[in-house]
């Protein structure tokens, strides 16, 4: 049973990593698109970010340096990721539960990360501070599970009770929240079982494939549910963190101007593509490139030739 859990653990991590990489590969190599930024763009200088301005506010902007303030991007990203800024500002009613839910995840992730590092240290030495730190990390993990469970429950109630959410919630969304909540509850309850191994012991066992570690049924059930979720996340909307990265960095904040024809190479290969749109005025039919179509004038009959 314990060995099966270890296998499930590694399989789930592999599925998660593979699925996320696949998503990234789906978006990253797409052709450079036309500009579609949205202001404020946070890497503008602080003097402009206050009012959401851009380099277009300067006369002869193309002759001036264009400093990019990465700190501005970082500030917005931190506020977005950890405080759900957009939801807080525009949808306060849903923010509380959403914040609990995500904070719970972050605490669980941080706790697991610390425990893995501590396990690694324990292989080399056993300093006196290791156990107390592990207990604190486990405590944060438990708090994370509790918050996740509570957040999932409240979000589920929102989606069931409010029509404006219910109408746009799909069956899988209910299942996701219910399974997340149940997995968190089982992990929490299982972790408190008298016979439950300590977090360090469990992680150590997973590293060494130690079948001697006893995992109580409740905890095993919680782990299997959580691992199933982990494997499934990249194949569902729960992987929105990947989409969000690209949506913000590659679209909303992508204000790079075509100075010195910086985009000429990428765009010229796209202009060589041969579209197949059927409308007569478009004048495509699969035989003309985008460049030829743009140069043609349908109003004088050129597009139809």
């Amino acid at each position, binding site marked *: 049973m314990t060995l099966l859990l270890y296998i499930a653990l590694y399989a789930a991590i592999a599925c998660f990593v593979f699925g996320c990489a696949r998503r990234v590969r789906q978006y990253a190599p797409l052709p450079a698109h036309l500009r579609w930024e949205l202001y404020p763009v946070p890497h503008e200088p602080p003097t402009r970010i206050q009012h959401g301005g851009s380099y277009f506010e300067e006369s002869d902007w193309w002759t001036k340096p264009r400093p990019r303030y990465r700190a501005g991007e970082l500030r917005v990203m931190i506020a977005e990721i950890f405080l759900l800024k957009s939801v807080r500002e525009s949808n306060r009613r*849903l923010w509380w539960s*959403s914040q609990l839910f995500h904070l719970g995840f972050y605490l669980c992730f941080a706790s697991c990360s610390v425990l893995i590092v501590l396990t690694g240290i324990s292989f080399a030495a056993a300093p006196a501070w290791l156990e107390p730190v592990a207990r604190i990390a486990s405590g944060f993990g438990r708090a994370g599970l509790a918050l996740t469970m509570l957040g999932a429950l409240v979000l589920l109630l929102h989606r069931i009770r409010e029509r404006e959410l219910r109408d746009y919630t799909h069956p*899988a969304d209910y299942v996701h929240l219910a399974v997340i909540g149940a997995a968190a509850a089982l992990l929490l309850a299982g972790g408190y079982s008298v016979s439950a191994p300590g977090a360090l012991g469990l992680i150590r066992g997973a590293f060494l494939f130690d079948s001697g570690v006893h995992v109580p049924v409740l905890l095993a059930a919680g782990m299997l549910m959580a691992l199933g979720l982990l494997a499934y996340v990249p194949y569902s909307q729960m992987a929105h963190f990947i989409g969000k990265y*690209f*949506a913000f960095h590659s679209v909303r904040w992508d204000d790079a101007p075509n100075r010195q024809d910086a985009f000429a190479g990428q765009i010229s290969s*796209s202009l060589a593509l*041969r579209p197949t749109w059927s409308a007569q005025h478009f004048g495509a039919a699969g035989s003309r490139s985008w460049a030829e179509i743009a140069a043609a004038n349908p109003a*004088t009959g050129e597009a139809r030739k």
Partner: protein
Amino acid sequence: MKPGVRLRDMMRPDSEPLFDITHAALAPLPNQNEAAPPWKPLTEGVRQSCECGLDNTCALNLPRPKSREEEAALVDAFVRGLHKLFEARNNWTFLQPLLLSMEHCVGCQTCADSCHIFEASGRAEVYRPTFRSEVLRRAYFKYVKSGGALSRMQHGDIELSWPLIARLAELSYRCNLCRRCAQSCPMGVDNGLIAHELRKLFSQEMGIAPKELHENGSMLQLRVGSSTGMTPRTVKDNIDFIDEDISEKTGLEVHTPWDVEGADVLLIHNAGEILAWPENPGAFALILNAAGIKWTMSSELVGYDSINYGLWYDDAQFARVALRHAEAARRLKVKKIVIGECGHAHKALAVVADRLLSGELNIPRESSLTLLREIVTSGRLDLDPARNDFPVTLHDPCNLVRLMGVVEPQREILRRIAPQFREMTPHGVDNYCCGGGSGFAIMSPNNFGDWRAQVGGRKKLEQVMDAFADCLRSGEPKYVCAPCSNCKGQLRDLFAYHDLWERFRIGYGGLAELIVNAMRDVKPGFIDWEWH
């Protein structure tokens, strides 16, 4: 939350409207004691011959198919177009943003309260920003991704039929593409982009687009040079007339230079200004001459009209017009293109076309607002703010502000020349659209004008009245400065519809006019209040 339309209603097989907008349902307006003007019903002829199955207006006049076979062919065409929308060869222009918006919405509805149309309509469900997106999203997962049972669980199900597609076509023209909803989305999902892409599908695959944008818009512009119908010769005649008129009115000699090779600035106006608000190009000519700028206009086909309606519905039409703008500048060997007071022209030529223009066509492009700011702050004009001592507020055109980041130059000018300048709430990048965005300002088929004035522009109307709340009934004239031709078109119709001049003495105009009105060496009274 009002009971009513649900997403599945889009699949209803009949062609009856899903709902009727009623006055009672609309969001209340301040100082609206009088009954709102009656909403003109659609004529029986239109209802019989056109697809009007969404609400009680009709923007497209989409003819009803005459047979089952014709219906089936239209559904096939839509499905074909749907596939093309997600192919790099057909839609490299916006594929990445579109995919990101398709695949990551979590249905939190955070965007809903950002939408002026949804709010003004009294939260009519079909106008919810996610409503049309959800229809396209379900179709994408089912027809493009060929999703099975798991996909239906994850993304929902939909059955494409002609009544649904016809409703969706109309629904793609109930969004101003202002992208205020995108600004609030925690995932970066852009419902405005989704409406834009739907419009492209209909235009580029099925040849469906509003007559005002396509036949009388981009096609006319490519044929004669301007969507106003002005040929190079007539535009020069009209500008000559404006020069004369402005010279007489201001007491200063005004002359617009044409086709000056090697000029520092090629100024391209929205040609609608020349016909509807001639004082704006006149004011520009006067200011640029007074500031000693070496500038010119182009009489090249398309080169004298910055309009680019393709921005809103068709990538090919967009690229064709943008290339011709750049080509006009290249031929004249100008140092930069300055775009007149037109929001969508700014976004089209300076932002969206940026990466399309390379080599000799990559001529620097700049907003007229930054140039005007430079002129005003440099002291090259002798200005007397006391001449503008009346309440002034500023409308932020979405394309210029939220979508391009030109926020402060117009404010710096107004703070110098308008002592009673006050902001709307909210303003800047958080502004509300005037309701004329994405082509609506020039669209008034059937009773669409009623929709624009009562729903699309309702939030702006509220903002304008709130901005002047302290002096609303004072009897003094009040000025809404709208540095955008399309916004002015919408404000003209909106203010006339709600009788704002008669009731509150609220008028509107551009920024250049206010500058000229403040010039000491110009005869007083450049702004003609009664005319509007």
